[in-house]
């Protein structure tokens, strides 16, 4: 099994926010916390593009690197998770994340920052699988149920793909080949690294400029 990844196809996303709703509902995410959101670029202008953004489960996760208490980890499927019992709510991970994935619920009378909450790829966290503690802290563990993230599985246009990185990359590659356009995947190179060989640029836009 390869690493679990998300991939959002900007050519297909229609900004329905179904993924956001599915995530909120599946994990009973509290008010003010959005593990997933839809971002629209050039909103209202012909040719606008929308993309669904959450934790990209980076292979070399900046949040994991900056966490002062080392409470963030990768599981064997490449999913970035964290231990809420250790989190001190400092917010370093939020500053480090290029996608704004870490969320902080407001707690207490003065709006104090609570423990970090983020997309778990529906893989729960370091508590017993299917336990009440796991659900309350991290949400439902669909991965342990043999399912994929709710946001990707219910996406009506299948713009949002989630699962084994090799498989979803193949699905997307096939899609681009069939329709003949839309190879640029927003966020892909940021999350999954840039080509290392010289003379090879990271994105088609950079290719055109050079």
């Amino acid at each position, binding site marked *: 099994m390869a690493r679990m990844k998300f991939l959002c196809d900007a050519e297909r996303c229609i900004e329905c926010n179904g993924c956001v709703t599915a995530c909120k509902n599946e994990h009973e995410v509290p008010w003010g916390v959005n593990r997933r959101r839809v971002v629209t670029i050039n909103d209202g202008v012909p040719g606008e593009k929308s993309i669904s953004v959450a934790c990209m489960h980076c292979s070399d996760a900046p949040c994991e690197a900056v966490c002062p208490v080392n409470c963030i980890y990768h599981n*064997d499927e490449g999913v970035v998770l964290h231990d809420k*019992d250790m989190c001190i709510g400092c917010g370093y991970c939020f500053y480090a994340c290029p996608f704004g994935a870490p969320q902080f619920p407001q707690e207490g009378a003065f709006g104090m920052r609570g423990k970090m909450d983020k997309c778990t790829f529906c*893989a729960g966290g370091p508590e017993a699988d*299917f336990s009440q503690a796991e659900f309350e802290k991290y949400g439902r563990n669909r*991965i*342990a149920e043999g*399912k994929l993230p709710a946001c990707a599985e219910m996406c009506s246009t299948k713009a949002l793909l989630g*699962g084994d990185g090799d498989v*979803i990359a193949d699905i997307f590659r096939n*899609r681009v080949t069939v329709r003949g356009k839309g190879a640029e995947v927003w966020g892909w190179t940021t999350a999954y690294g840039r080509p290392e060989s010289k003379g090879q640029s990271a994105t088609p836009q950079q290719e055109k400029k050079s």
Partner: protein
Amino acid sequence: MNANIRAAAFCAFSAVLALGLAACGEKPQASVYQEGKYQGKPDARPWDNPRYKGDKLAWEKDIKARNAGQNEYARQGQ
């Protein structure tokens, strides 16, 4: 009367002793941080639960089926 005082003193001494030793059973609450290593609780594998009972192949089969289900080009002919 003397016996009553002695009993009360014994009770008070026992209580003080119990309270005094209560902290001896306390677990250390401070983590020892090792830089660059995850310090939290270990997580279970997705197939180590009552549903899959450690059957990794069954779990992988289910995940592969779900992965493939996202490809509508493959589903068209079914």
